[in-house]
């Protein structure tokens, strides 16, 4: 209450200035209605002024002063001229309101000047609708409450509108959230009925009349204040607008003191924790998809989504019910279809999207909107319907090379009234869309080329070092041995063929065929030693093959022997056939040779294996 009382002293200052204020006497406010809505933490005041020009000159601007303690909590101020009469007012567009500093006025007031679209001529009149929204103007009193207490706030205002003009007739209506009131300043003509408190009407008040009223009442609503909100709007021309919002939320109501009992809260939630912040509802555009809600330690599972053709409602609960003074931080994100928000005009593209936070009952102290344009955008400008601080930065994201231009818009004290559309214009060529895919393709292509080059190139550092030469030699030896083994294998195959021909002979008795087979085998076998010779001489000359050469030589001799025996067997059998001797006879004759052949074959196989393993 102390602070409130100190404000009372202002009244005297204003009374003092009344004596000197003469410059505005031309204008007279004939009727002034004020309505103050205290039902939410954001205080909304609607003032309708009927102004008459009684002076000689026409007037082009109207001055509206506000006391300092209100002015610094201004969130939003707009003025409209409503033409026509009675109930059928058709309000025109809002007209510009700017801060003004008239000469010789006390510093305890902030002045706003409303420039009229057309001058108010002598004797003329107009009706001005002023809408002012304040934040942080409700003061929790007491500042700390327990879980069971009701949250009380105090609100201070003047019963008389602070006006530089003479006011003929004025009234004030204050709307409370509940029909309960702790206390209020009683002046003449004060009436409290239902949940409305009325002051007035007051007639013929001089300029700068001021009469403080204080309302102390219960409000069981959470004071959700985002100390920081960063909205990042990222445009992808592949068809998506991605919005990410980082909130730093605090319950700015009366702070909780003492115990927090979950038991009490769960048993009687509307008594023990009436003003706790349980949930928030974000109204997202229709066709919002990929919605997420998380904080720095992961997903928060307490959220719900409903959607219809006009909107998507996202209901989120913080991890814990928020009592006064408690804080939390979270992020929500969602994607929107590009075609709903991106349009083209005059060779430029423009994004048309809402500025503020999608939650209707959150006050934002510092709002930063970042619009991330696609890489390669040029000539970008932003147009916002109210003053914001603009700057630019560069953001590097998925495979960017030059980075994406970012338009940063900053606004303090943003309220739902700021949730208006704003536009970002830029130029962008569709070809730039292909840069990243083509970069990837090129990158992979280079990678494969590098692989091909690697497999075909020889990366040995020194071509003359002994180890390298030895390796080369060893490779040669290995190829030679491989060739040698192949020849041997062919040789063995020929042997097998001979054997097969013998079997055929025993089956069919076709001696001629058998002889032919023998002939071809002979000619082939004769060629083989010719092929073997250079290989063998190479092996003998090569120092690397010292260990293998004896085995190879042994193999050759063994094979020769085998070959001879085989030929012997073959000719014996064929001879026997020609003589038409019996099968048993042939077997007995060949038996000895056959035994040797099997033995030799075994040895040859073993040798082949040994060489192979080297």
């Amino acid at each position, binding site marked *: 209450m102390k602070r409130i009382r100190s404000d009372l002293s202002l009244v005297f200052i204003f009374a003092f200035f009344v004596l000197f204020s003469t410059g505005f006497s031309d204008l007279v406010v004939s009727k002034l209605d004020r309505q103050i809505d205290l039902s939410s933490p954001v205080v909304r005041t609607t003032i309708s002024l009927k102004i008459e020009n009684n002076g000689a000159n026409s007037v082009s601007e109207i001055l509206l002063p506000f006391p300092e303690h209100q002015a610094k909590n201004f969130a939003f101020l707009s003025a409209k001229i409503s033409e026509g009469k009675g109930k059928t007012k058709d309000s025109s567009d809002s007209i510009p309101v700017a801060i003004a500093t008239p000469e010789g006025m006390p510093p305890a007031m902030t002045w706003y000047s409303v420039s009229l679209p057309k001058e108010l001529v002598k004797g003329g009149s107009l009706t001005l609708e002023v809408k002012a929204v304040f934040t942080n103007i409700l003061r929790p009193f007491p500042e700390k409450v327990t879980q069971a207490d009701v949250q009380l706030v105090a609100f201070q205002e003047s019963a008389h509108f602070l006006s530089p003009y003479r006011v003929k007739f004025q009234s004030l209506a204050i709307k409370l959230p509940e029909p309960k009131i702790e206390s209020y300043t009683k002046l003449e003509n004060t009436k409290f009925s239902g949940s409305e408190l009325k002051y007035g009407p007051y007639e013929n008040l001089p300029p700068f009349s001021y009469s403080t009223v204080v309302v102390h009442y219960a409000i069981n609503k959470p004071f959700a204040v985002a100390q920081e909100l960063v909205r990042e709007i990222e445009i992808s021309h592949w068809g998506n607008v991605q919005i990410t919002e980082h909130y730093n939320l605090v319950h700015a109501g009366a702070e909780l003191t*003492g*115990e*927090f*009992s*979950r*038991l009490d809260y769960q*048993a009687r939630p509307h008594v023990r924790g009436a003003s706790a912040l349980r949930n928030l509802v974000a109204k997202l555009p229709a066709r919002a998809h990929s919605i997420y809600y998380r*904080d720095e*330690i*992961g*997903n*928060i*599972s*307490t959220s719900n989504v409903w959607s219809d053709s006009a909107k998507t409602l996202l209901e989120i609960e913080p*991890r*814990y019910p928020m009592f006064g*003074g*408690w*804080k*939390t*931080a979270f992020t929500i994100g969602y994607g929107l279809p590009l075609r709903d928000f991106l349009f083209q005009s005059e060779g430029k593209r423009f994004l048309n999207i809402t500025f503020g936070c999608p939650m209707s009952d959150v006050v934002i102290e510092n709002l930063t909107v970042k619009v991330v344009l696609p890489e390669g955008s040029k000539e970008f400008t932003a147009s916002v319907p109210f003053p914001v601080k603009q700057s630019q930065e560069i953001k*590097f*994201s*998925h*495979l*960017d*090379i030059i980075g994406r231009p970012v338009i940063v818009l900053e606004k303090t004290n943003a309220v739902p009234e700021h949730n208006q559309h704003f536009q970002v214009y830029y130029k962008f060529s569709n070809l730039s869309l292909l840069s990243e895919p083509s970069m990837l393709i090129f990158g992979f292509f280079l990678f494969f080329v590098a692989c091909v080059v690697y*497999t*075909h190139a*020889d990366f040995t550092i020194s071509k003359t070092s002994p180890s390298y030469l030895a390796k080369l030699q060893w*490779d040669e030896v*290995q*190829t030679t041995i*491989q*060739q040698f*083994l*192949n020849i041997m*294998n062919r040789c063995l*195959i020929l042997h*097998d063929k001979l054997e097969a021909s013998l079997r055929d002979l025993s089956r069919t008795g076709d001696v001629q065929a058998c002889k032919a087979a023998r002939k071809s085998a002979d000619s082939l076998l004769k060629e083989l030693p010719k092929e073997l010779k250079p290989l063998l001489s190479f092996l003998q000359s090569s120092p690397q093959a010292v260990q293998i050469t004896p085995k190879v030589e042994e193999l050759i001799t063994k094979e020769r022997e085998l070959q001879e025996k085989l030929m012997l067997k073959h000719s014996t059998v064929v001879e026997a056939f020609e003589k038409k001797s019996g099968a048993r006879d042939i077997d007995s004759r060949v038996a000895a040779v056959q035994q040797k052949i099997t033995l030799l074959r075994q040895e040859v*196989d073993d040798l*082949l*294996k040994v060489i*192979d*393993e080297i």
Partner: protein
Amino acid sequence: MAAPENPQQQAATIRHAFGNVLSFLILLLIGVLAFSIRLFSVIKYESVIHEFDPYFNYRVTQFLIKSGVYDFWNWFDDRTWYPLGRVIGGTVYPGLTLTAGTLWRIFNALNIPLTVETVCVFTAPIFSAFAAWATYLLTKEVKGVGAGLTAAALLAMVPSYISRSVAGSYDNEAVAIFALIITFYLYIKTLNTGSLFYATLNAIAYFYMVCSWGGYTFIINLIPMHVLLCIVTGRYSSRLYIAYAPLVVLGTLLAALVPVVGFNAVMTSEHFASFLVFIIIHVVALVYYIKGILTPKMFRVAVTLVVSVGLIVGFAVLAVLIALVASSPTKGWSGRSLSLLDPTYASKYIPIIASVSEHQPPTWPSYFMDLNVLAFLVPAGIIACFMPLSDASSFAVLYIVTSVYFSGVMVRLMLVLAPAACIMSGIALSEAFDVLTRSIKLQLLAATENPQINAGDATKVTPNDAVKTEKSEDSVKERSSRKSKKKEKENVEKASSVSRKEKRLLVLPLEASMIAVFLLVLLGAFYVVHCVWAAAEAYSAPSIVLTTRSNDGGLHVFDDFREAYAWLSHNTEVDDKVASWWDYGYQTTAMANRTVIVDNNTWNNTHIATVGTAMSSPEKAAWEIFNSLDVKYVLVVFGGLVGYPSDDINKFLWMVRIGGGVFPHIKEPDYLRDGQYRIDAQATPTMLNSLMYKLSYYRFVETDGRGFDRVRHTEIGKKHFKLTHFEEVFTTHHWMVRLYKLKSPKNRIRGKTKKSKSKATTTTSSKRIGARKKNPWH
């Protein structure tokens, strides 16, 4: 001759190229499988770090990325073990952290904006794919490509490994298993080739393993064992020397570079085996050398001479060594290693190690759960390794035998067994398929080509010749490229040796082999089904988020832990100290960013015992202990309302035990009624007055009127009580986490000021507290 061979040669080249491409594709798919089977946790829950230790690793990674490597080495963490702090840079295995940090840096350099959390979550699945590829390489060295591919596929989805490497399980083991396998591969590769290049790579891989996990001691003991085995069985060769000697020298030097290992690499007993074998291998190398230059007779003389002298010297050295080792109390072994050698050690002397569930011996079902059919295939694999026994296959056998033992001591080491089991099963399956498909093929060939020859007369196997001819003709190669020539040769050599082996093997009847193939495929299918089930249901829960299915099919989420941590992080002062049982230390520092008294790095037993003592003391004494530690909040986990079984009341006996181990006035029997742990009306007064009981059950009775604990299934013993020194500041939605604040001391009464002051200054040891009778604040 050359002209007609060309098309055949081309066909062979194409076939080999096709085979290579095919195995490359299979490997790629195995990698994808290994990665994607671990994503169940992300799909079913969310992309979040799991459990306890991963949170610490995550926090360290965040620090590394924020502050750089040099600050990381010098990081003294004052947010934990208050007021002692912890030197993180010197006590943490940096492998995992550095790996994830590097990954993050690479992604960021390419302008791919991934958060540190995302990189950490997916590190484990990525490295499981790498581990599967490394298994392929290792098994290929042991038993060829087929076995390699099978083993890789098995490893990609073995449940035991999945349990430690699902997405989000950001723990050392995730990287370490890959490091373990690649180290073994490089060792075998060196052993097979005798190349110094691979030996160097091997030392580097070993270095990476040392960086990653304390389990590196397994490598540095297993490899010397294998070397010793080779020497004893007369398999010494220069390749063995090249494989081992550089590893010991380079590996030890590199290991000593890791701060957490440092001089332990030469000081502790875990490493002595490697040095001993290092000496032995040199002696053996010398003996072989001398044997080469001396005549056999001279050699025998030399042997007798050297052996007699060497024995004397050896015994002297050994005696000194034993004396040195025996002079230290733990015989130079660390506690965890000792509990490996003597499974009863931990439960006898170190309750902190015994209190961790993953340090308990496994049960039989857990083998089936974690290995499934591999458990039955392993013996077959071991048999296959013995025919023929090579250096590489003897290593595989040794690996499986030792890891089976270790897994029997500690559940956690099941993880080391898993790759060995996969390798063995891969070999078994591949050999079986080899035999069966070959006999099917031959039978079919025989049936089509030589209908005259009796199929039953298969023992003679004449049709083999046809196969053989075909194969050996392939082997004529004349290639310009040196490299490809070499590769081809390897293949051809294998092919021809196989073709020759075929002759000697029996061919099974067609029907039998068909059925056997079918059954094997069925077995594999069972394995796959089990693995997918294990990955999806058993091992993907992140444990910080719990879910239950309600009767109507809805999903209910219990997110109480994060609720509490989020509350702590946003609504308390940055420097507030939070006391809780050590399980929640890592999570509190990582998620709530608040200073804790003890955490999961249980390096200071006394400090943990202090917290245990406080939890088991009456309220007043506990307040004094906590106050002396500057504690502002106490966090307890309570599952009684919703039936969450691993809460603090169930862990309470460990707190009593650990506390009592250091502060003897806490006696376990005081908390037990006739040896039974109970919290109902029969519980002892000490139990009912302990801080843990009071903080857990504060106002619990008011929830349902009688205080029915859904975990213990009883009504609680003491129902209505008030807290005098603590106040409830936060309780989560399902009451799983309860936070209490220490009340500030009341104003002192003038007359008692002096007396209490002198005592207050010495309030450090809890023994003193126990001895005090009066509370100065009243």
